[in-house]
């Protein structure tokens, strides 16, 4: 029953401070002691002690790769720990599968939802419920779903198919599902990553209702602000171990960030002044269709100069993807002209664009940006294998390739076991660094970066932004597509607002104003905005 019974002597010494006891002497909802999880070549968790009181919202904070998801997958029965012991509400447990965890009242909402898209909400929720009769009673199921939805403030239509729902609604289905399966302890893995700000507020209200009704919530995140606003206590993981467990009311953002990263974090980057040089990339009246053959770019005109970062602000789906693709030769344009360094490259093949000096950091790292099953070294050579020194006639010099990749690992501070590691095994931040390393090592004249820090943690985001700024300082023309206005304000020199395939307005970021940009992102015309005419001769459309 008590941790002292653990067979690991060193765990017992750690436990000398006695396990946490609630004031009413109730055992903690979750108690994990000395959890170690090893994967081949990696220790994901190293002697982690983690205790969650009943009825609290406990945030598990850490950078990508710090071991948050691994620890929670152990708690949810997906992974078996290599060492360590778990108690749930005082009962020692030994999970061999998720069903054991569910039986003990532990349920997890995964980052990638465990839902069947073609089936209804009710069917998804009732999947695997033991008590259902052989012949399903759809009316009763719908009523049950509505009842739980109302109880926790999560309205959802039981008869809707999952694929018809927004991501936020799908998340509600996941939560209702694990509640219906009897979860007392809910683990939410990065639940806000997919939510709009309004949906996030709704989720937080739901979580507060749940803990008020005696449930316990473990909230995995790397977003400092939301952790501070929702959690009672915060456990910070770093490099597979516990950095510290703190009360949310006792800490601030800067303290949390340094606990997470292990050093002081600069929330502001240094951006030296650079006078824009010659025009490197020029699009004039470019028109293109999207994958459904609908107009995606409508007479879009844009220039990017040397030593300049132009930030494209806009709500996703307003032509960002198509804009990036036409510049890289991945999508044909139906009208207009594209020039790189004064040379017309309209509808040229990707290889022509690459040779013209265009580099591309695509939105989708693991499908467009890399070949997941190829090694790190091969991924860094994907654009340079044709030429010396990696290529030689019809052969690839693998040793040279590996040496170069090793150099990039050092230069870009990529954490990977070796150059032979398949990149699918890397974390998002490290994969992004591999892609940036590949693109930047070609000394690009133009760099198109689409959502380069999406899904990355503080440390990786900071590193990526710094890499982009360094390139700009060295003279590259950078087109930065981002949903994150903070990011655009932090590193862009100029901001262009994209709406329905048009540039609604352009601003120098120094004198740009958030509200105006926000209005333009929603499609309000330029005449209400304080634009400087010299900066946006093309915006009137």
């Amino acid at each position: 029953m008590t941790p002292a019974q653990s067979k690991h002597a060193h765990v017992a010494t750690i436990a000398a401070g006695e396990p946490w006891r609630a004031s009413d002497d109730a055992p903690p909802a979750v108690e994990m002691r000395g959890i170690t999880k090893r994967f081949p070549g990696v220790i994901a968790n190293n002697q982690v002690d983690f205790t969650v009181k009943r009825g609290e919202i406990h945030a598990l904070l850490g950078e990508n790769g710090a071991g948050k998801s691994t620890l929670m997958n152990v708690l949810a029965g997906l992974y078996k720990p290599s060492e360590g012991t778990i108690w749930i509400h005082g009962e020692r447990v030994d999970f061999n599968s998720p069903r054991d965890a569910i039986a003990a009242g532990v349920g997890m909402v995964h980052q990638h939802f465990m839902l069947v898209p073609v089936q209804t909400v009710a069917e998804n929720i009732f999947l695997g419920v033991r008590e259902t009769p052989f012949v399903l009673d759809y009316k009763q199921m719908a009523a049950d779903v509505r009842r739980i939805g109302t109880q926790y403030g999560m309205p959802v239509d039981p008869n809707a198919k999952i694929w018809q729902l927004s991501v936020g609604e799908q998340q509600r289905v996941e939560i209702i599902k694990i509640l219906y399966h009897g979860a007392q302890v809910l683990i939410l893995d990065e639940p806000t990553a997919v939510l709009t700000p309004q949906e996030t507020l709704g989720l937080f209200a739901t979580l507060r209702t749940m803990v008020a009704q005696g449930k316990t919530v473990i909230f995995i995140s790397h977003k400092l602000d939301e952790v501070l606003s929702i959690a009672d206590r915060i456990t910070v993981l770093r490099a597979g171990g516990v950095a510290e467990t703190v009360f949310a009311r006792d800490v601030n953002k800067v303290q949390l960030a340094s606990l997470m990263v292990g050093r002081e974090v600069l929330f502001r980057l240094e951006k030296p002044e650079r006078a824009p040089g010659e025009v490197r990339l020029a699009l004039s009246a470019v028109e293109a269709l999207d994958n459904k053959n609908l107009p995606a770019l409508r007479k879009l005109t844009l220039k990017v100069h040397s030593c300049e970062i132009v930030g494209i602000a806009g709500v996703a789906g307003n032509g960002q993807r198509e804009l990036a693709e036409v510049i890289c030769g991945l999508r044909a344009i139906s009208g207009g002209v594209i020039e790189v360094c004064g040379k017309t490259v309209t509808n040229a093949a990707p290889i022509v664009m690459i040779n013209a000096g265009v580099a591309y950091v695509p939105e989708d790292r693991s499908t467009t940006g890399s070949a997941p099953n190829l090694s790190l070294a091969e991924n860094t050579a994907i654009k340079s294998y044709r030429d010396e020194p990696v290529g030689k006639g019809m052969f690839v010099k693998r040793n040279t390739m590996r040496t170069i990749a090793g150099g990039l690992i050092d230069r870009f501070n990529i954490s990977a076991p070796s150059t032979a590691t398949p990149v699918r095994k890397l974390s998002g931040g490290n994969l992004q660094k591999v892609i940036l390393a590949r693109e930047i090592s070609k000394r690009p004249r133009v760099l198109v970066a689409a959502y380069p820090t999406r899904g990355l943690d503080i440390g990786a985001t900071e590193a990526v932004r710094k890499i982009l700024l360094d390139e700009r300082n060295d003279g590259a023309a950078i087109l930065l597509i981002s949903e994150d206005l903070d990011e655009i304000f932090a590193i862009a020199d100029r901001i262009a607002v994209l709406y329905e395939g048009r540039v609604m307005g352009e601003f120098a970021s120094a004198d740009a104003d958030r509200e105006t940009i926000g209005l333009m992102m929603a499609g309000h015309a330029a005449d209400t905005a304080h634009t400087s005419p010299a900066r946006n001769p093309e915006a009137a459309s």
Partner: protein
Amino acid sequence: MTQELTVLAIIIGIAHSGIRLATPYLYAALGEMMAQRSGVLNLGVEGMMLMGAFAGFYVTFQTGNPWLGVLAAAVAGLLMGLIMAVVSVSLKAEQGISGIGLYLFGLGVSSLLFKTMLGTVEGVNGFHEMQFCVANVPLLNIDSTFCMKDIPVVGPIFFDHSVLVYGAFALVPILWFVLNKTTWGLNVRAVGQNPAAADSLSVGVNRVRYENVMLGGALAGIAGASLSIALLGIFQEGMTNGMGFIAVALVYFGGWSPVGVMAGALLFSSVNALQLWVQVLGFNIASNLAVMLPYLLTIIALAIPFRRAQQPAALSKPFTRSET
């Protein structure tokens, strides 16, 4: 007048044969549909049918009881399905390849058993056409025996078949109900679409797949028996002649739904019946071309991409709980 009667007779004949010939396709394709809905692509239907055809025929030949034959065929198919399940679900072999292996195994073993246990082509009196007859119902003013077969047009088309034919069509609503309205069916669908989700809710993914592959095997066995002891009354080596592969195609054609599969089976068998009658009536078409017709139709039908959305997302992917 005579001309009209003949045309009507031909149409009735084609409709009757269409329903009759649909039987083996329907059993086999419905079984394959269940396996695929759980996420297992079994290309060995042909081999399972041959084993069922032989087992059913042999037992009927020895005992004279076609019901025992059907049971033997189902068991033979079930065991073949078990082999497939062990190889493709437990051992996680590539399903396309293991299915072809199963086909060759069934082809070889059924031929071997035929040669050693029978030696020559024999005939059995298997199932007969069912008689839907009523005798002396004064209320309806029927004093002599009345058979539904005697109803004009409808009678000979629908009420002149063996019990196995009706069984095949009865399976359509039964399987629809089981798939869509029962807990087990929900498990099957979820396992075929997102096994990780099913696993996270303590649905035994491999268990559900075993059940469905074995059910598919049993139905394929019955499909074979329907050919050897109901439709033809003989057993020959390789007598299924590609039907098992057509059955796999019909599952895709039917969009993984029982009704769709039935429509496909009926379309296919009707064209088959048509081509038989074309030959019988001596139209001036090369018989080789006529025989090709149903297969040509299969290719055309499969090339039309519709109802693909229904395809089980996890089809032909063995399930492993991920530990990255």
